[in-house]
């Protein structure tokens, strides 16, 4: 009996320790980032982070600020140009969080991939280049919206208390990331939605324009255009634009870098633009209704001046009475009649589109030569012809003539107008006007409103001041907040 008890006791203690080991049926960080598939999965992680916060709030706010559109409901105060009210501050906070979450995922992968056991040096560079593109894009957006922000890289991931960096440091970092991406990203994108070398060059050109490095921008843009990698999609009728922006489009020759969507995981901004009663081409604008948060109206000079023959006007706007007491027009560039719910419209978010690069190229020439050249005018006309339904490469009756718009200022005005009509509702207008320093003037022209100084930058989130000991609300917050 006694022996039996001792034996049982020993038996129990011996097998004990193994029983307490954990064997989860999931993946841990230590064993990841080694093979090609794992690196590809690592690139998708930061792309996913843009979907919450950034994907809806960024175009929503940018379009509420544009000189041609107005926000409705809780977005209405944005179009008063008095800075963000608390409800909209929570939206800008959401953009901050999703950008930094993407940056974190990039940082972790960038720090782990160099030790990947199953990757060649070339593959490592290629994946790291894709990640640096994404990180560069995230920081470029942060810097444009908030100016000075904390610079978190793969070297200081554990330092929670990070002070703001200067604009120079930030831009130097962004340029370094994008230059690496421009050299090492795959020539053609690995998957539709991952960055290619041209996408990196295009984004770098945009950064150069921001920094007023017109030569650098011009050279990059020229090489992209000359490569004939991209081309404008020709259209004949208003509905043909669906081939570019519609929900069934997977890829076009205009796509440089888009944030992709499917019906399983889509773009909430489309729901934001839609109205339950809006009907396009006999079908509902959005399968799940709509929140109709944006509109334009008669009385806005930029809209009123828009030529009815421009097919883009008919495609991008739709008259719908919203009960506000004046004629209102919904932004209908993006619509998805089959979207099953608010977050599932499958239109992709066109972050960088070929016409953006064309217009930027024309602008760079304008700056470098202190006035347009024929080449610049040709580029502008190509975009314009396509907008009116003509073949982009053939002269058309509506072309601008160089002789009529020979000065730098006049040509710039043409570009400014064309940019509005071409990138209507894509969330690019406000930053474009601000870059050129003409926001106040254009908003006054189109809407008759003045812009308060604090409206130019977003406030740094309160959570940042609460938990980051290196930031102080009194000293580091953007002016006016």
């Amino acid at each position, binding site marked *: 009996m006694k022996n039996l008890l001792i034996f049982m006791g020993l038996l129990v203690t011996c097998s004990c320790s193994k029983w307490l080991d954990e064997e989860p049926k999931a993946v841990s960080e230590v064993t*990841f980032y080694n093979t090609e598939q794992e690196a590809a999965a690592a690139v998708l992680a930061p792309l996913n982070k843009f979907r919450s916060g950034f994907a809806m709030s960024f175009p929503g706010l940018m379009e509420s600020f544009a000189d041609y559109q107005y926000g409705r409901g809780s977005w209405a105060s944005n179009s008063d140009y008095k800075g963000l009210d608390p409800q909209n501050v929570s939206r800008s906070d959401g953009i901050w969080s999703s950008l*930094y979450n993407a940056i974190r*995922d990039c940082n972790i992968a960038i720090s782990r991939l160099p030790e990947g056991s199953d990757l060649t040096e070339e593959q490592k560079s290629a994946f790291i280049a894709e990640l640096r593109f994404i990180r560069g894009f995230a920081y470029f957006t942060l810097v444009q919206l908030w100016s000075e922000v904390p610079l978190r890289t793969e070297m200081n991931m554990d330092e*929670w208390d990070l002070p703001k960096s200067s604009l120079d440091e930030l831009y130097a970092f962004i340029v370094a990331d994008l230059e690496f991406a421009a050299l090492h990203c795959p020539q053609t994108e690995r998957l539709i*939605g991952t960055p290619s070398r041209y996408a990196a060059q295009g984004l770098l050109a945009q950064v150069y324009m921001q920094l007023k490095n017109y030569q650098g921008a011009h050279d990059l843009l020229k090489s992209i255009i000359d490569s004939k990698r991209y081309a404008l999609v020709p259209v004949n009728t208003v509905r043909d634009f669906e081939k570019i922006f519609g929900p069934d489009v997977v890829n076009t020759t205009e796509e440089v870098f888009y944030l992709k969507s499917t019906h399983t995981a889509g773009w909430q901004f489309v729901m934001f633009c839609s109205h339950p009663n809006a009907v396009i081409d006999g079908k509902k604008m959005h399968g799940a209704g709509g929140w109709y948060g944006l509109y334009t109206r008669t009385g806005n000079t930029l809209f009123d001046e828009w030529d009815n023959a421009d097919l883009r006007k008919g495609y991008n706007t739709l008259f719908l009475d919203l009960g506000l007491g004046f004629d209102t027009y919904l932004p209908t560039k993006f619509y998805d009649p089959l979207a*099953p*719910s608010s977050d*599932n419209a*499958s239109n992709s978010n066109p972050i960088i589109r070929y016409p953006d690069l064309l217009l930027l190229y024309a602008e760079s020439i304008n700056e470098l030569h202190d006035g347009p050249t024929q080449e610049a005018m040709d580029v502008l006309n190509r975009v314009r012809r396509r907008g009116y339904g003509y073949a982009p490469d053939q002269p058309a009756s509506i072309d601008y003539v160089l002789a009529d718009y020979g000065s730098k200022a006049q040509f710039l005005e043409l570009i400014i107008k064309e940019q509005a009509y071409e990138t209507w509702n894509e969330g690019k207008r406000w930053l474009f006007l601000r870059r050129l320093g003409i926001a106040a003037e254009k908003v006054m022209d189109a809407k008759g409103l003045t812009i308060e100084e604090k409206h130019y930058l977003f406030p740094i989130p309160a959570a940042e001041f609460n938990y980051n000991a290196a*930031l102080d609300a009194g000293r580091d917050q953007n002016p006016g907040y």
Partner: protein
Amino acid sequence: MVHKLLKKWCCLASCLCLGFHALGQDTVTGRVTDEGGTPLEGVSVSVKNTANSTSTNVEGHYSIGARQGNVLVFGYVGYGTQEVEVGANLTLDVKLVTKQEALDEVVVVGYGTLKRRDVTGAIASVSGQKMSEYVVPNPVQALQGRAAGVVVTTNSGAPNGNFTVRIRGSNSIRGGNDPLYIIDGMPSSPSSINSLDIESVEVLKDASATAIYGSRAANGVVLITTKRGKSGAASIAYDVNYGIQSQIKKLDMMNATEWATFYNEQQLNDVGKTYFTDEQIAAMGNVDWQSLVFQNAPIQNHNLMVMGGTEKAKVLVSGSAMTRDGIIPNSKYDKYNLRSNIDYNFNDRFSLQLNMVYTRTGRSDQNSGGGNRGGSLIGGTLASPPSLQPYNEDGSYQNLQLAYPFMSNALLNPFNILNETSSKTNANLGNINLALGYELIKGLSLRTSLGIENNDYQTDYYRTSKYLYGASNASISNQHDMTIVNENILNYHMDINDHALDAVGGFTYQQYVGKSSSMSGSNFISDAPETGQISGASIFGIPSSGYTKWVLMSYLGRINYSFKGKYVMTVSARSDGSSRYSPGNKWGFFPSAALAWRISQERFLSNVDWLSELKLRAGYGRTGSTAISPYATLNMLSQGKTPINGDMGTFYAPSTTLPANLRWETTDQINVGVDIGLLTNRLRITADYYDKITKDLLNAVILPPSSGYGNTIRNIGKMGNKGVELMVEGDVISNDRLLWTLSGNISANRNKVISLYGGDDVYGSNVNLSYINDFIHLIREGEPMGVFFTYKENGYTDDGNLQYIDRDDNGTLSVADKMITGNPYPDFTYGINSDLSYRGFDFSFFFQGSQGNDLFNVGETANLDQGMGLNLRKGVLNSHWKPDNSPEANAAAKYPRVSRSIAVQYSDRFIEDGSYLRLKNISLGYNLPLQKWGIQWCNQLKVYVSAQNIWTLTKYTGMDPEVNSLGGNINIGVDYLTYPNVKTVSFGARVQF
């Protein structure tokens, strides 16, 4: 005429029965009462040294086969046993006498039982009769107000029961604060137990009682023991109950005329002209949305229990069915139970206990609450304008968002949600517990048990194509849990002269494996199959699955020693190993020690007649809390899907929490208590004082958003709880005809956070209403956990807007201007119970209350969001700032100037006193005098009416003061549009054969 015939027949039958007995032997009958003459039911009567036994009925009568010269043994809880010899007269009435020591009442403690006089810890007992006094969906809810130190708060009124249980306060920030539930020795969830199966509940409160449960005992232990068969005649009992539930209180929302008048004023202030004309206002109907949505609903319960047995085998079988409809249509909770408890003695040494339970629950949820601007079912019910109908003229649902241009685009039509969405959860819960006991030598026995619990849940969610706010959608999720518990316990008992020793030691192993899976699809062509054909979807969601396993191994031991029945000492120790912690930190050690001194046994008190019991207790112990989820110390990557290349691609990304080396949270507790019995225990008082400190609290260190992480977790932090508990119970009147027992308990707990990481404040989660997105609760050193931390209003500005105190005077409103404005914890909680029985009538009532706790009324913030066309409370129209008011009238106005740009923040405006006193149960019953009518075949027929939550005293202006919309942990005390609580009126009957 019929009555006479019936009587004659009954007499004849009973004569025959008696005659049967007389064939074999004589019959002895009689009545057993206590000293006061009150009849005692259930007294066991047996013929000494035979297997012949019976028990007394409700009138105290018994009848047993015996003859002159036999010795009858009478035994009853609290009276010990008494032997009486049968004389020539075969009628034997017996008066049982309470003995001083008949606190030989047996109390269930961890891993064994002790006599009440030997208990050194703080243990509260609640009888099974009290647990089943009124119908509750989850038996633990019946503990509310019954035991000092146990605070049960209702989180929401959903039919399946949603509540928080705290024993002596909350110990942990991140870990659970729920007590450990042990059912018949096996750790389990009590939610599906049939209340009428419960024999008794013991709540172990202090460390010397709970330390034997080690690492899960820091929050107290609730031991539930179910009824078992008894030897003797078989008995069958049937209970039935039927009641109607209704909403306790409706909110005073505006009617159509008031609503239109109000929005005219708002439009005039903000836009420059009114919107509604007088003709339009006159033509509006009035729709009372609350009355349409919250309707009276029935609840019923049926229970059948059969038990009986012999010396060798005892069996109990019970089956019950409870169906409870919710006051929101299409919500309900059904519970079906089947149980059999078997005891079998193979011989003097070897015994077996087998419990088998099967439960099936079915739930239909309509819990959509919270949200903002009417964006949920409950929110929409309150916020929908009274001028709008739920349906259009053609019968389709009206999309309320489009009714007016200023209408909020978040407002949902409640009927669209009620009728076109359904969420049903069905569960099969099976539990088998087998224990074998073997007596090795005299006094030393071994008990080995194996418990298996297998739970399966399936939730079917379907949204039809008539849903206005999205396409048709189906989802199915499954959860499968399997728990295996094996316990091997040695028990040694020795009783020599003045020494009594009770020792327990053993080893236990527990394992949990949980698996889950889910799938979803949307855009169905037909709604008919609901979730039955998910392959018919046009668009598929991403399916998911999960797996969790954890293991707990323990060694435990306890020695209870008493000397002369006067001095008692208990020492216990437990060593727990858990798989959740990092290697090197997996084991924890939890000891305890306690002493008790029964002063009333000392010679110097033996002459004090009125003092029947005086016992002092003191104990100290350490318990632990597991507090982290499995795999939390491993650096796991979470997986997801994102669109790429026209399809969905898989990504892996780190989670938002940075993991680190973690270990147990431990709680050290001191308890000092006294038990007093006066006047032969007619008055019983128990009082306890306790002080406990929890160390190595797991604390989230929140990281700034620029880090990309939400937080990291560290073992830093300390929390303390101290308090007093008092329980008083007395038999006020106890005689032949009238029995009146009164009992009450009161307890006060003070919670304090002692230290946090870096001394930094930790903020509660943000409550995002879109017009406010801020946190409400604070965890700060020196304050209770989860105090309200908000701005403080400072009157109105010159143009009638809200303004707040700017503490640091810097012109902007930030966290530095917030202050502690309320405390969600009560000053004290109490319960008062009265039971009166007189000549077959039973009358009882039960009050329960909480005093001094504050509530944060998030729903009230909607009254300051004036621009979205939503319905608001009448007070907003009747009492607000107006430019042409006098300054005094404006200063006294409850609400600011009507406008869509009110500067509303979370402030002390929304904090209210949530104290309440509630009549939880009142019931009147009548036991038909079957004995008098000579009916022998039926032992008891009782009918009764009762009401629950029928009367409430409170100052709270929200729907109900019993609410915890965001749970009972850090975000405690928030009222945020949850399923309303109900009051019930019911009647029922009990018949026993």
